[in-house]
């Protein structure tokens, strides 16, 4: 759902760290061009696009009718999210930056439909008609806050926090950078809310509790204090911000700073900007910095060797031999038998099997518990509650499974990256070449040279929304579409009624029970199918992502080596004056690289890395 076509526009609103990272990337691109490395230029272009287009998703969660949509409206000073006293938001609404403003609805059959603003209401509210159900709605607005890179996901309040919908919300949280937990000042936090908060805090790094509707309740300060006590008792350290969306919207209408200050929103905005957005920006800048570092290390190796050969062709030949050896070895790094490839392939197989097993295990447990519940009572008495319970448990299993998948893929990415680092370092380990080592040490930060796994992991985490987002807003949503059909016996039981003799009544109950069990098994099979397919797709995407990423790196390393050899040869074979000329250019390049490397090494975000 991201639109990489307009990174430059979006960047404009982002922080200094990102702006600097953009300049760094541009410089690295220029230097790559100078050294004739189009492959590295492409790499930099991709990184630049990523930096500009990644949103920082903030999920807005909470119970039904706590003012979630109004909060999003008030944050953005707009009325775009439909608000009604009775009707509820039933479809997740993503609000992100875009120009011109637009609304797109993604339907159950994966069609995307442009929606006029006036009709947004019809798409977001619960639909009872027989139109194609809406899976998610995306609203693009040109607002300063969004331009900065934040995006908001207004989650449905349908069904309560511990329902199937609530579970899906938890799934979305796994993918969001931050969560705003909304509760109103009418009463203190209730049991289910605290429980949900606990789960939220476990899945999401930044959680802010927003206490809404402070304009309506004289006692809101007490409620905030009571909530603080509850949080302390639950051992949760979560900041709480009381706000009045009503005042903020009124402030917007009258352009009044005083009203805005009274609304409590400035503090919330500061937290969003300072804590969440700034941190995301730092991470993005760091990832870009590491990308630059990788490119720089490749360039330095190539230019350094060519320059050394230019100054002294004899050293040049010795270096050429070693680089040739390195080139051979880096071919192995790119080949399918490389250590990191083995780690990846084995890892993916394990992961795939484990996630599959995990899902099966969870669903089997659900089946057992469901059957036990059916044994306890006649389905005609509790069918409705039973099916609500089953869908809730099934989504819970699916979401936990997804959470596990995300965690495991991150572990695997780390393993592969680590192994790749080892392989990469191994390229030089037993090369008997003091001169090359000399060249490397010359002003070079050792850490700098490594295709640090951190760099990659940042990029991987950023891509999480892309993997998971597909799962969350994609096929995963179809879980809600699966339903349990009521046993036919229910109707029969109603008709024949109470006067049946005992045994006949029992026989009928047994019949209904068996039907209900069969239905339960069918439903669980279907859940296993849908979720299993989603997870397999996600695993496949992960595998492809990791393989492409490291293969590209290996190729670039190999290419660096080959180009170095070519440069040395050329330098050695060239006539004296031409070699000098060429060396002068290389010296110039080398100095630029050196200066840039020193600059990069002094960046604050690198020091903290």
């Amino acid at each position, binding site marked *: 759902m991201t639109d990489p076509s307009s990174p430059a526009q979006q960047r404009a609103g982002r922080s200094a760290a990102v702006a600097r990272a953009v300049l760094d990337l541009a410089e690295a691109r220029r230097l790559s061009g100078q050294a004739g490395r189009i492959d590295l230029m492409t790499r930099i272009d991709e990184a630049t696009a990523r930096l500009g287009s990644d949103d920082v998703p903030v999920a807005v969660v909470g119970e039904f*009718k706590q003012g979630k949509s109004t909060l999003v409206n008030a944050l953005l000073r707009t009325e775009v999210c439909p608000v009604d006293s*009775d009707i509820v938001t039933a479809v997740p609404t993503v609000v992100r930056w875009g120009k011109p403003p637009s609304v797109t609805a993604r339907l159950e059959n994966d069609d995307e439909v442009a929606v006029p603003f006036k009709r947004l209401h019809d798409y977001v509210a619960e639909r009872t008609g027989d139109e194609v159900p809406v899976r998610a709605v995306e609203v693009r607005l040109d607002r300063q806050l969004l331009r900065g890179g934040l995006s908001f996901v207004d989650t449905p309040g*349908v069904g*309560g926090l*511990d329902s199937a919908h609530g579970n899906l919300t938890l799934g979305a949280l796994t993918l969001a950078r931050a969560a705003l937990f909304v509760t109103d000042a009418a009463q203190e936090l209730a049991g289910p809310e605290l429980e949900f908060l606990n789960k939220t805090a476990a899945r999401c790094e930044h959680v802010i509790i927003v206490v809404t509707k402070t304009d*309506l309740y*004289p006692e809101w300060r007490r409620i905030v204090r009571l909530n603080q006590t509850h949080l302390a008792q639950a051992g949760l350290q979560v900041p709480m911000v009381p706000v009045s969306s009503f005042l903020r919207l009124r402030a917007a209408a009258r352009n009044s700073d005083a009203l805005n200050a*009274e609304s409590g929103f400035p503090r919330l905005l500061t937290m969003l900007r300072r804590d969440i957005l700034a941190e995301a920006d730092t991470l993005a800048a760091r990832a870009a910095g590491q990308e630059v570092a990788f490119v720089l290390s490749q360039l330095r190796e190539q230019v350094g060797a060519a320059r050394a050969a230019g100054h002294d062709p004899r050293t040049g030949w010795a270096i050429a031999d070693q680089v040739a050896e390195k080139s051979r070895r880096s071919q192995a790094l790119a080949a399918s038998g490389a250590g990191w490839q083995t780690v990846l392939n084995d890892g993916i197989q394990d992961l795939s099997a484990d996630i599959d097993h995990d899902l099966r295990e969870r669903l089997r447990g659900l089946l057992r518990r469901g059957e036990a519940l059916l044994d306890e009572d006649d389905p005609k008495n509790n069918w409705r*509650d*039973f099916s609500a319970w089953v869908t809730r448990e099934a989504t819970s299993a699916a979401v936990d499974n997804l959470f596990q998948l995300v965690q495991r893929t991150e572990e695997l990415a780390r393993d592969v990256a680590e192994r790749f680092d080892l392989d990469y370092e191994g390229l030089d380990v037993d090369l008997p070449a003091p001169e090359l080592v000399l060249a490397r040490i010359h002003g070079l930060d050792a850490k700098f040279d490594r295709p640090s796994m951190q760099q990659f992991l940042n990029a991987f985490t950023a891509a999480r929304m892309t993997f998971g987002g597909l799962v969350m807003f994609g096929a995963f949503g179809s879980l809600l579409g699966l339903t349990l059909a009521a046993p036919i016996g229910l109707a029969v039981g109603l008709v024949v009624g109470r006067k049946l003799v005992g045994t006949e009544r029992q026989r009928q109950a047994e019949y209904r029970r068996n039907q209900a069990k069969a239905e339960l098994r069918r439903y669980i099979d279907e859940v296993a199918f849908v979720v299993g397919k989603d997870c397999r797709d996600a695993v496949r995407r992960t595998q492809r992502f990791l393989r492409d990423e490291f293969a590209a790196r290996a190729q670039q390393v190999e290419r660096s080596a080959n180009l170095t050899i070519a440069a040395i040869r050329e330098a050695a074979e060239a006539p004296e004056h031409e070699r000098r000329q060429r060396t002068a250019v290389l010296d110039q390049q080398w100095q630029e690289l050196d200066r840039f490397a020193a600059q990069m090494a002094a960046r604050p975000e690198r020091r903290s890395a």
Partner: protein
Amino acid sequence: MSDHILTQVRRLLMRAVSTVDDPALTLALERLDEPLRVAIAGKVKAGKSTLLNAMVGEELAPTDAGECTRLVTWYRDGQRYEALLHLEDGNVEPRPFDRVQGALRITLGRPAKDVDHIEVRVPSRRLRTSTLIDTPGIGSISADVSLRTMTFLEAAQDRAAQADAVIYLLRHMHSGDVRFLEAFHGDDIVQGSPVNTVGVLSRADEIGSCRPDSMETAARVAARYQSDERMRRLCPVVVPVAGLLAVAGATLREDEYRTLAAVAAAPTEDAIDLMLTADRFGSPDATVKVPVAARRAVLARLGLFGVRHSVQLIRGKQAPNAQALAAALTAHSGLDRLNEVLTAQFVSRGQVLKARSALSTLDLVVRSGKYGALTELVSWAEEIRSAAHEFVEVRLLHLLRSGRIPGKAEHLADLERLLGGSGAEHSARLGLPPDAHPHRLADAAREAIARCNRLAEHPLSQRELRNAARAAVRSCEAIVIALRY
């Protein structure tokens, strides 16, 4: 006829008491002559104590923004104000109490876990017809409980309960909520079934964010609840009530009226500014010349919606004095409508409900097995149950409302009304105004008899439907007889 059933049950219980010596039976017998017991139940912070105060017309139960009621408290009519502790071990002891701004503060003098419930005696006309029971809120309940809720409610119809009828307080909730039905889940003193339960959509003023049309919004929500099939099985009527308004309507003081009138007299801009938020209304540096303490006091009593609504009424010259304002607040609060519904649902059927509770107690004693089979008592009880038409009506209403009787919706609605679903009065059963002429009532009853007979004899009618139709015929015949009498 109703006296009749109570007499029958009383006779049975007297016999039972003389046969077996069980304190539960003695209590049940005494209870037959007491006012109907109505429990007020609901989740935490639903506004139970506030509603109780509104119904008694006095600020008795302490209310607070935080969770407040922790012990079951009975409010009974008495000669004077008294607080009695009923202890776990069965003893009763009077306790001293004082009143903070009207609300009772009772010194327990012992750990709360030793106390079964508190009984408060209050000289009050409104408590003469029914004893009100305030209950602590139902907290969060686990998923398994939710699953058993239906089962539990089904069973409740023959289980003895301490309360004869239940008012369930609901906050605004979504009908797809898993915990939707849990809102009805009580503890052992309040067990509802669709014949003795009335739902109240509480804190109705807050549903529409305290905007002027809040009560209309609340009415819409209540109508939606009422049309929910699951909801109908639990309580067929849902009434929106703004508790704070109702209490204020019952207890509004002259000085409070003066405060509100002073706010209303301020320039429009200032008044709007003042009432923009609760904080501003209680702010010490407001431009309106009304003492801040007085403003805070009325805000605490009426809530922001109450204040806004009152000021609007006073400005619109619709409330020239405290009495007029109090009446207007009560009317707007929905309390009148609740009282109407309570009369229709409980009071007119009070004796049946009480008899039903008494029989349940007897069942429980028999089932405990402590005194042998007690065959004679059992068959006597069974006889009363099957012979008394009131019981048949109640049972059929239960079946109708829980969707157990197959048939066309219009037929079922008709039967429900004839069997007393909207009130046991003749006019209510026949769907005519209360002041309808006896001739008109009798005509309508005859028509209904013909209608139900057709239904009962229609070859395609299911047996359950036929039974219900026959019972309705009997109910209508009773009306005709009573009118001729």
